[in-house]
């Protein structure tokens, strides 16, 4: 199943990278605030006036926790982050979007998943059905730099029928 998705992804990437799937019309999706680390935003607090370094390298002076494991062979930070306005994300069209709209970035390469997401099938909607429901951003569940969903510890199994917590 995995293999199938990936070959599909690659096909998708080579064929239609620059076409926005799901139409170009911008729909609105209410989302909770993006899960940025405390104190990191606005990025421009540091980056304003700082020289831009577009070379692929190991970062030593900041963001040392970020290790890019996301199609890193073919891209680097400034494919997603705008070099001049660090408070925005950058689409391949050059258009800048807010961190609250990072799904627009993801949809460039993950069209079918994005479509499912808008329907509430991939990812998750919470709150009230009518009007007030919100969408979790892709980045609430996937670290954009290392998006693989990590294994987690399960909650405990139920007590067996004869367990001392269960018997009369």
């Amino acid at each position, binding site marked *: 199943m995995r293999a199938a998705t990936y070959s599909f992804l690659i096909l998708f990437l080579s064929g239609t990278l620059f076409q926005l799937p799901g139409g170009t019309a911008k729909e609105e999706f209410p989302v909770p605030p993006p899960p940025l680390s405390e104190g990191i935003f606005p990025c421009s607090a540091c980056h304003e006036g700082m020289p831009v370094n577009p070379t692929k390298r190991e970062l030593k002076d900041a963001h040392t926790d970020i290790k890019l494991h996301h199609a890193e062979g073919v891209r680097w930070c400034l494919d997603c982050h705008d070099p001049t306005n660090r408070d925005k994300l950058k689409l391949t069209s050059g258009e800048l979007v807010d961190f609250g709209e990072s799904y627009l970035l993801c949809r460039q390469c993950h069209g079918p998943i994005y479509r499912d997401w808008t329907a509430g099938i991939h990812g998750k909607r919470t709150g009230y*059905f009518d009007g007030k429901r919100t969408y979790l951003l892709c980045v609430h569940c996937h670290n954009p730099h290392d998006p693989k969903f990590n294994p987690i510890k399960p909650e405990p*199994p139920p007590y067996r029928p004869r367990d001392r917590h269960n018997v009369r």
Partner: protein
Amino acid sequence: MKMLSAGFLAGFVGVGTSCNHVIDEEFLQKHFLEMTDEEKQRVVRRLEEKYLREYGKTAHVSTGAAKPKTLWGYGLDLSRCIGCRRCVYACVRENNNSRYKPQLHWIRVIRLKKGNLINLENAEHYYNPETVPEEDFIYMPVQCQHCENPPCVKVCPVHATWKEPDGLVVVDYNWCIGCRYCIAACPYKGRVFNWTRPNIPKEELNPAMHYLGNRPRIKNVVDKCTFCIQRVRSGRYPACVEACPTGTRKFGNLLDKNSEIRYLIENKRVFRLKEDLNTEPKFYYFFSL
């Protein structure tokens, strides 16, 4: 000595009568579907007072009816479930289930060996690895399937369980006689039995209740998943949907063309458990991959 025992007796009689009074009123209570609004209000008030006494919390017991043009349906994405059981415990807390003696879960997460989904011999729900998901398994949560054609309802000798107009299969705990025919009749093991009063830590009582749902059960009654009737009838997702970290669980109105449940039925490969039994579950499993 005299004085003391007289006082003791008086006290005892006092308690006795008030107790009898409550029992009588409960005993004489009508079937939920036959109560007038006024009678419902009286019952609700009595329950709220009881919960305040027993748990020290002001509860709100809704008797809210089904909304028109609504038929609730559930979707579960087997490609995404990682078997973490967050839903199981979110359900317990939301629905005021007994925590121990007995521990009553409305959701059972079954672990199945990949590639051999038909063979239920390898299925188990006590798995406990360090982390999930595990390489060779898939996970299938099972709960009440809210059948259109529910066998549990058919076998109830006193009509204590029935299907609501919005499709929810519910139980009037005050009407249930504890015969457990419904438990035997359910092909999905969707029902559990309260052989004693529920053990719920006072501070964990969820005060937002529905009469046909998560109000604390009484001794010797059957209960089960209600799709969180107390939440969905006021427009909120069930607790298990909200708790799921992977977005495996989907919920919505089958009659609403824009609901996620309709989207997945129309766009994904869906199946229902034991379709050959003609129970017509409103619980759709699907594969998004």
